[in-house]
């Protein structure tokens, strides 16, 4: 039997029917990785022996398939998660060779419920980027078109699932790093509410914005991963105590929703993306939903706000990579100052250094009020815009990204141009809200288009329900040919 295209739901049904065993499934996925990933460069580390051994342990527990909600599910983990015994480079030379001494809470929860890690996947260095071209270990290619980027920063996570190298994957989203690559690769990608999933064990980029979330082919799969992974963690002081609903059980509830659209956001959107988005609105209307215009006046400052807050926090979060306790150490230090500066200067890549310097500047004496503090005040305004909108509608809806996948090298010379591909996702992180990207079409170049549902805090269940309804109307979304072993 061929593996790679299945969903969690399909694999679980197969296990229940005893059609195959976890080791057969995992072997199939490992084979896909070894055959297909040369073209994609999505995996940074695979450990076939350990992975197969884990799968074989599950072979002996086939009777537990109903107790383990992720029984025998092959999962890929972004390389900025720590998993004991696995590397965690976060796509950076400064962490090359680093072996995790402990496991992230999110990963630990998935593993304890039967998920099997097939590998650590590539990403933009320290999750900074929108194309996965900032990885120290090479760019990742989009399974739909190998000349194009898979999006970023979780480009390895999206490429791996789209190409059938993992059933689901985990990524992190600080300004769009799950939703944008999900959109560019034709997948469902969720950025949960801030505080919904533990951040313990993910390499911090911008602590007040980072969230962990899943990539999957279907809404049901996303809901399943979330109901296992989300919830309070006593190792993350920013995680919420709120109980986690059984998301998969709430998917079929018959509800209609009011969608809010900020028309000013749509200026400058690629026409094909715009057309596909309008069709989504029509689909919701047909299902009995309402679409209204809303105004989010301060979201136009999202880019500036984000590019002060995130780099400021990053400049501090990344200070630990100084060559003293772990990670890359320069061979040519003359003093301790020199050791820090060279280890960092040599170990950290171009875009990350840009953001560290930007943040260092924004926090430095004399600039703090004008930059960091001001940005936080504007952030509050953006939050208030959404709060106001949510008095009128259930969701704010938009395209996930203004365009489909762009060509490798197309935006690398101009950071601002690159930053704009996250223009619709950034405000969601700034406001701490949940955002779900769902595939809604292909453009004339056969590249996936996605739209984004933005919900009220902790209303992931509503997002899933609405997206699930839409998915039924839309029909099954195609996979790139590489996922079927072709291409």
């Amino acid at each position: 039997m061929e593996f790679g295209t299945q969903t969690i739901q399909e694999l679980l049904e197969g296990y229940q029917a005893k059609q195959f065993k976890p080791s057969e499934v995992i072997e199939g996925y490992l084979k896909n990785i070894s055959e297909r990933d040369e073209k994609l460069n999505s995996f940074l580390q695979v450990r076939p022996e350990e992975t197969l051994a884990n799968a074989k342990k599950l072979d002996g527990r086939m009777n537990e398939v109903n107790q383990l909600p992720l029984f025998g599910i092959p999962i890929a983990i972004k390389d900025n998660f720590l998993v004991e015994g696995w590397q965690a480079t976060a796509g950076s030379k400064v962490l090359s060779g680093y072996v995790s001494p402990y496991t992230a809470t999110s990963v630990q929860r998935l593993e304890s419920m039967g998920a099997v890690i097939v590998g650590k996947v590539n990403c933009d260095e320290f999750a900074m980027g929108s194309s996965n071209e900032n990885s120290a270990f090479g760019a990742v290619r989009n399974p739909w078109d190998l000349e194009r980027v898979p999006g970023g920063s979780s480009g390895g996570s999206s490429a791996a699932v789209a190409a059938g190298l993992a059933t689901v994957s985990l990524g992190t989203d600080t300004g769009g790093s799950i939703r944008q690559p999900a959109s560019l690769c034709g997948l469902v990608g969720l950025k949960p509410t801030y505080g919904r999933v533990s951040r313990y064990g993910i390499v911090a980029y911008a602590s007040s914005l980072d969230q962990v979330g899943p990539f999957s082919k279907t809404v049901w799969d996303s809901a399943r991963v979330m109901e296992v992974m989300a919830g309070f963690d006593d190792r993350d002081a920013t995680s919420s105590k709120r109980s986690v609903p059984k998301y998969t059980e709430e998917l079929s509830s018959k509800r209609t929703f009011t969608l809010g659209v900020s028309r000013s956001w749509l200026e400058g959107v690629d026409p094909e993306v715009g057309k596909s988005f309008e069709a989504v609105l029509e689909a919701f209307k047909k299902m009995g939903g309402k679409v209204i215009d809303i105004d989010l006046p301060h979201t136009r400052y999202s880019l500036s706000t984000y590019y002060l807050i995130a780099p400021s926090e990053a400049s501090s979060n990344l200070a630990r990579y100084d060559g003293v306790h772990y990670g890359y150490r320069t061979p040519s230090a003359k003093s301790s100052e020199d050791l820090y500066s060279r280890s960092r200067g040599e170990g950290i890549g171009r875009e990350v250094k840009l953001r560290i310097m930007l943040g260092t500047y924004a926090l430095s004496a004399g600039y703090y009020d004008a930059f960091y503090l001001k940005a936080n005040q504007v952030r509050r305004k953006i939050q208030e815009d959404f709060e106001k909108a949510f008095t009128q509608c259930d969701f704010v809806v938009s395209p996930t990204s203004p365009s489909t996948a762009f060509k490798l090298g197309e935006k690398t010379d101009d950071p601002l141009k690159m930053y704009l591909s996250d223009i619709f996702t950034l405000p969601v992180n700034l406001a701490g809200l949940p955002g779900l990207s769902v595939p809604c079409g292909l453009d004339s170049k056969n590249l996936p288009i996605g739209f984004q549902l933005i919900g009220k805090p902790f209303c992931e269940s509503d997002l899933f329900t609405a997206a699930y309804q839409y998915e039924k109307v839309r029909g099954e979304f195609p996979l790139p040919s590489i996922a079927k072993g072709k291409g």
Partner: protein
Amino acid sequence: MSLEKYEAVIGLEVHAQLMTASKMFCRCPNQYGASPNTNVCPICTGQPGSLPVINKKAIELGVRAAIALQCEIHSESVFARKNYFYPDLPKGYQISQYERPYSTHGNIVVRLKNGDEKRIGITRIHFEEDAGKSNHESYGTLVNLNRAGVPLIEIVSEPDMRNAHEAGQYLRALHSILRYADICDGNMEEGNFRCDANISVRLRGTEKFGTKVELKNINSFKFVEKAIEYEIQRQVFAIENGEKIIQQTRSWNSGKNVTEVMREKEEAHDYRYFPEPDLPKLTISVEWLGQIRNEMPELPSQASERFKKAFELSDYDAAVLTSSKELAHYFESVVSHSKNGKASANWVMNELLGRLNAASKEIEASPVSATQIAELIKKIDSGEISGKIAKTVFEEMFATSKDASVIIKDKGFVQISDPAALENAVRKVIENNPSQLAEYKAGKVKLLGFFVGQAMKETQGQANPALLNELVKKLLDT
């Protein structure tokens, strides 16, 4: 002397380690003396992905300190990151509090040697985590992170002190309060109670502060006083010689009894403080505060008041006996066995403390235990031995740690309370002093004392004084 024209302005910054079982933001043991890098985990070594979670007990101890120091306690405060690079600071920042500390505006009333009291203001108290330790060897720097992440409070005083004595008394009072309330063990050698002093001098009567010099990490009360005294003189002489005081950090060289330059005022640090995004605001609710208040251990000032009432002690005696928690506990233990507060106070203060001081020993190292001293007092009260003998016995106890009863038995110090035995001695004295007897009989009654003294000598001081007095009078008058 030109020193008289000047006054010093002194402010102190104290870092006190909190007595918790685990560190401030992680579960590692808060324990001194372990092998290097054994009390460490992903959080206190700054591994990627690790996050801080606040130790509740640390907050409670900090709040306790704020209550004891009469501070305002803020229901909301903010942890902030202080960013700088140092080998023993694994995250590249220290989690501290900056613009919004949890506590401000307190004070301590200290007693000065001239008997006056002085109120020293406390500007703020804030929480922070300790750094690790770097040891510089010829071949490189060795970093031990066992101490990294240990909970601290930093207590910043107002620049209210004017001389070394005031600074010393402030530190002693603060030390005593923190130890009394089980906040900090106060061990200065292990660095659990550390002091930095900011010192400047100015002409008396002027308002403007002089250029300040910071004295770093002085590890005993005596050295703090000596260092400040030296520094004041150094600054005054410099000014008198027409030199300018340079803003700098100095350290105390206890071998040479001088302060020495550690570093010139370098280019100003830019710590890039900002609110710690991994932690929410620190909220101390009214209920929690009430609970901490209810669980407050007794403070030195409260113990002192209680002693005064319960044992009828003077202000001075009560203050001395509550100057440290261990001394107060010792005293209370003596009283509980001896049932004689006044005598217990006298023995502890006059006999024990004097000898301990002479031997440079703390009360914890006293060779005489509280029960032993209480037994001695009981023997005096029961008339078994005289007070005078008791002093001899005590001297022996202090030297040998033996029980009073053993010494009394070995040396035959038992008080003679048998009238028959005493009568012989008295008769002998009267017979040997016929002329004094004649004078007494002629009306010189104050010679009674002479006979009593002689009789006491005759019994080698072992006579029961009251009984002896009575007997001498009786026999002289017959």
